[in-house]
């Protein structure tokens, strides 16, 4: 038997009678009130107030959203355009140039101090890079461990510079005290 449209509609309409017993809705309201009270007690008062405020503000922004967003956008674009024009007209003026001056004033004493110290290099050891190949037992009497290791055929220890790949400046000796390099770089950079 094919179910035509009309029969289907009638069958569907009968489903509206699938309802819980009438007392269900009385209990439902009671349960709702209890749940509401329990929820109100669980949540801190500030949160309830905040939710209410947020809902109200949502409504406010919904109603004024188009005008307010358009106005805010125009204002931001206008300010940005005016600032750009000002910068193009007077490149050396304004907040940016004063910041640059400030930066130079701070950097200058450090740069001068650095230049002076660099002219007198610290002479802690030989000024040429070390290149040594040690074979066999190390001839330092106090270091027995090295000697022992060498007897048992431990690998050679090579000390040598990394060769011609280095530039002229990097071939100059670097002296390291603890882990702090006495290097050529300025201590402060901005």
């Amino acid at each position: 038997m094919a179910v035509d449209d009309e029969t289907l509609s009638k069958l569907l309409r009968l489903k509206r009678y699938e309802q819980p017993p009438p007392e269900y809705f009385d209990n439902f309201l009671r349960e709702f009130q209890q749940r509401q009270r329990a929820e109100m007690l669980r949540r801190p008062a500030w949160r309830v107030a905040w939710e209410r405020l947020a809902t109200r503000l949502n409504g406010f922004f919904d109603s004024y959203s188009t005008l307010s967003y358009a106005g805010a956008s125009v204002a931001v674009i206008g300010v940005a355009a005016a600032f750009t024009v000002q910068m193009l007209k007077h490149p050396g003026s304004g907040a940016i140039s004063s910041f640059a001056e400030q930066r130079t004033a701070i950097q200058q004493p450090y740069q001068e101090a650095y230049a002076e110290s660099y002219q007198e290099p610290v002479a802690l050891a030989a000024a040429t890079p070390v290149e040594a190949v040690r074979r066999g037992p190390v001839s330092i009497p106090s270091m027995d461990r090295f000697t022992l290791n060498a007897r048992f055929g431990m690998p050679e220890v090579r000390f040598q510079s990394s060769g011609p790949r280095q530039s002229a400046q990097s071939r100059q000796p670097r002296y390291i005290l603890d882990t702090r390099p006495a290097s050529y770089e300025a201590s402060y950079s901005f």
Partner: protein
Amino acid sequence: MTEETPLSEDAEWVARAQAGDPAAFDALVVKYSPRLYGLVYHMTSNHEDTNDLLQEIFAKAYRSIPGFRGKSSFYTWVHSIAVNMTINFLKKRGKRNHLSLDDMDSGVQNDKEYIELTATSDPVREANLSELQMRLNEAMQKLSHDHRAVVTMFDIQGMPHAEIARILGISEGTVRSRLFYAHRQLQNYLEEFH
């Protein structure tokens, strides 16, 4: 339906609820819970789920009522909340099947369509009708959430197309096409049964 609900009365309760009067919101709960129960129940086909969802729907409506500005009726607004929450719930629940309650309210005995369908008082015919109802429930479960929502609102709850379109935020044309497609699907499922 909207014609059954005096809007001025709703508006007054809504205004009082917005001012913080819980009794006014209770009045709205009493008024709309049977209709919303039907909507949610025919979409979930499970009494416990319906009960929990309905509690959550009214709790959400209560929290959101300060932001309700009356652009639509309270009826449309609360139905939108119910449909959206139910569809979200069904998406989370997945394909767990729950068949309808068989205990129809006694009012069905006086229904014109029921009388027509069982007019011959033939026990075989009545048994068939009951079987058909059961199959229809199964077929309803096979519809997509969106199609089930439209069938529930139009065929079971008797809402007009325009009202359904407002609640779902879609065009009337979409409502009609969803209904057409859902009816075809239901008919196919019922034919398979025969």
